[in-house]
């Protein structure tokens, strides 16, 4: 039934088109347009050009200056984002000006210089001065944009400050894993061959620095401190993307990448600013990675630095939580691993310590 309706609809549309085609042809013949070089439709087209220009500018201005239901600028929450946003808006000002101006010239000229019987166009093949002006002016404007962009870019991609919190972020289909260095603040080595169902990120326990590494279920960041993300991927390319931090870097299997930045607002502060009590920073995957790409999410929480330190100190080493992996530690380092990971501690003492921390 539905198919029949579709077929009938198609036939109907086709019939209408044929009718329109025939009618316009006949009307053209009656009006004497058929043989004419410029038909009566020309004026209408010129007028439509002008109409489009006006409607376009009004629409552009209305929707860009707040006419949309939703805000199209995500609230900013990082230090370097201030600079990239500033660059963004400078570029926006320049390009909007050029955009509107050229569209005005384009469609207004089209309207103004429409064909008129007896008119003759002006033979104006070139003007070197004009050509030089509109080569030079964009060149100068672009140079300014390039130089300010380049300065910002060098700063953002430059070496991370010494005191940065180093955190590993690893992408895999379809989630993220983060690893902190633990008490020694140093991330241990990893090896993709050591990955298994439990040791998801492939911690290599032949490296002493790995004993106290811990893997939480959320990416917790300290406000106001530089954070240095060491980024990698386990299977295909992913991309660490966070719109509020204006942060993006691909996670590439076999080639570690990095990005450092300073978060400037805690989650609580963002909740207040956005008026959304459920606001959460989300880590987004922004490189096509397969079926679940669109849902590859990880939660981020930015907290005050003191709170961060407390949380950091309270985390159990991964090795402690999975102490059967002690077997992977080389014999001569086993003792050290037991101590560094906290397995050696009296379980009761540990519990008391945890209780104290959480009460604070």
């Amino acid at each position, binding site marked *: 039934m539905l198919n029949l309706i579709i077929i009938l609809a198609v036939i109907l549309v086709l019939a209408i088109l044929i009718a329109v085609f025939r009618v316009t042809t006949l009307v053209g013949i009656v009006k004497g347009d058929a043989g004419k070089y410029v038909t009566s439709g020309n004026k209408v087209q010129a007028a439509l050009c002008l109409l489009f220009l006006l409607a376009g500018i009004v629409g552009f201005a209305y929707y860009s200056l707040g006419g949309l239901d939703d805000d199209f600028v995500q609230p900013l929450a990082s230090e370097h984002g201030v600079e990239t946003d500033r660059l963004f808006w400078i570029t926006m000002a320049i390009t909007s000006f050029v955009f509107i101006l050229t569209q005005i010239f384009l469609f207004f000229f089209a309207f103004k210089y429409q064909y008129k019987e007896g008119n*003759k*166009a002006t033979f104006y093949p070139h003007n070197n001065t004009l050509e030089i002006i509109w080569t030079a002016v964009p060149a100068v404007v672009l140079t300014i944009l390039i130089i300010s962009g380049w300065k910002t870019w060098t700063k953002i991609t430059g070496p991370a400050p010494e005191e940065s919190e180093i955190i590993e972020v690893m992408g895999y289909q379809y989630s993220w894993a983060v690893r902190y260095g633990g008490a020694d603040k140093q991330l241990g080595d990893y090896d993709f061959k050591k990955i298994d169902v439990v040791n998801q990120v492939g911690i290599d326990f032949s490296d002493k620095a790995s004993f106290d590494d811990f893997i939480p279920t959320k990416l917790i960041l300290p406000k106001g401190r530089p954070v240095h993300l060491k980024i990698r991927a*386990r299977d295909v390319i992913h991309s660490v993307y966070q719109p509020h931090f*204006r942060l993006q870097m691909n996670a590439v*299997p076999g080639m570690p990448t990095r990005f450092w930045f300073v978060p400037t607002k805690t989650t609580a502060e963002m909740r207040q600013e956005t008026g959304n009590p459920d606001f959460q920073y989300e880590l987004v995957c922004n490189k096509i990675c397969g079926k679940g790409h669109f849902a590859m999410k990880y939660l981020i929480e930015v907290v005050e630095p003191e709170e961060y330190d407390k949380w950091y100190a309270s985390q159990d080493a991964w090795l402690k939580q999975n102490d059967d992996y002690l077997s992977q530690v080389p014999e001569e380092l086993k003792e050290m691993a037991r101590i560094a990971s906290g397995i050696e501690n009296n379980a009761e003492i540990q519990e008391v310590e945890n209780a104290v921390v959480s009460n604070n």
Partner: protein
Amino acid sequence: MSVADIKVDEHLAHDDHGHDHHEQSFIQKYIFSEDHKTIGKQFLIAGIFWAIIGGGLSIIFRLQLGFPEMSLEWLRPILGTWITDAGKLDSEFYLALVTMHGTIMVFFVLTAGLSGTFSNFLIPLQIGARDMASGFMNMLSFWFFFLASVIMFVSLFIETGPAAGGWTIYPPLSALPQAIQGSGTGMTLWLVSMVFFIASQLLGGINYITTVINLRTEGMSFSRLPLTIWAFFITAILGLLSFPVLFAAALLLVFDRSFGTSFYLSEIYINGEALPNVGGSPILFQHLFWFLGHPEVYIVILPALGMTSEIISTNSRKPIFGYRAMIGSILAIAFLSFIVWAHHMFVSGLNPFLGSIFMFLTLIIAVPSAVKAFNYITTLWKGNIVFTPAMLFSIGLVSFFVSGGVTGLFLGNSAVDISLHDTYFVVAHFHLVMGSAAFFGLMAGVYHWFPKMFGRMIDEKLGYLHFWLTFVGVYLVFFPLHYIGIAGFPRRYYSFTSFDAFSTFTDLNAFVSVAAIITFGAQFIFLFNFVYSIFRGRKAPLNPWRSNTLEWTTPRVPGHGNWPGAIPAVYRWPYDYSKPGAEEDFIPQNVPYSKTPESNLDHEAELAKSENITPAPANETK
């Protein structure tokens, strides 16, 4: 060469010298044809076919994006199990849709459909040649493309689905069937198809270049070439230099996929298994891919710009402003297009210093592009503009080229690109500046050269309707995507419901989808007009647009060899429109200066003295 029988005046009764060519069989004439005009039309029809498929795919995924709640059960007869039990599009098939949409539109429609059609059709006609340098290679070019098309088309229907790793097919995703089903047989077919496609491009490109260099008619110096030909010529060179690199990239990917090499693969653990590959670099693929990929966008847009130059000049009844600057900017764009590729990779983990270099080079390319836009606008200034559908599509192209071009200044700036990379801002940018602009170039070309292709006029009124629906529609589809992109919405997302940050703009997304459906629907007006006019259109006059270039000196339907008599010689540039002193507002290229003393400029009067022509029949007494 004798020019005695040049038809200076198109009102002269034109007798077709049928005896010039022998009768060909149907197969020789229409299928395995070596005639550049037929091959051009074959490319055009194949391109239109692909455009419908590519556009149709985009409508399916726009339905998903605009109306995520909608039941797509009614698509089950076509898509089968790609519609889940819940009546939703499968999220993996969504990726296959965007991948195939991109592949089809970039390569099969805007490269083959655009360059293939118009380079073939126009080069011999506009430079005054009987045919391409090698008709046989030209035929092979189409049939390799046809083979590529068949393989790509078949890949749409296999059980594991077509390639689904994005049209950029970045490994490891495209190398590992474990990562996504589409990287199995679908990807194999994609790669095989592209190999044939590249072969087709190279065969065609070599032909275009050779023909332009060697077969120009008497007097057709490079400084008298229409800008269309300049654009096709440079485009062919770009293709010849860059497509082999894609071939290399694809070949190494085939090795990685099938023969266990590690060019792009390293340290991968997938599906509970650590792969043996070490030492490869996925970034290497990106470099190779974009070494083609970036020139490719200019391969797509330059022919469109070339045709637009011709159409805007003709219909403004004015010479194109800054002919030499236009050629210069084509050359500059072509050169720069080879050294900007890494701007697609600012956040790929590329060395930041390299990023800086590529930012400098990328923003420089905006200068020649700006020059082109300004020159088009100045060409309109003080013109006497005739709004043919082709002219409107050309104006639309300039509008898109500017709108989409300016957003390149955001993305080319690596610092700003950090937050915009791979968002809908990019989608908006390239769909306007490259996709829609090139598509409008294609449409402008079809409307403008339809009378020469089929000997009949295409209906103007339906053309106007088609233009306005498409033009407004394209803006309504792609302009809102800028806002969504600034808000950080990632591209290639099946749905935005998983993230709070992207919970907004559901209405806007629905609006965009509606606009897309209307725009797509409007193309069927064109399709009807195109097919109907081929058979029922008004018979075309010899020079319907009162244009200067040589193709309009051929018979209404040029036969094999294009000109029944001798090939006309060329005495002037193609843009002598509204020349002061001249009676008509155009002087075709084949009219000698010595015949137009009233309109000659000083240096042309000098040239007139040395012109070597046998007296042509004086049709115009002025």
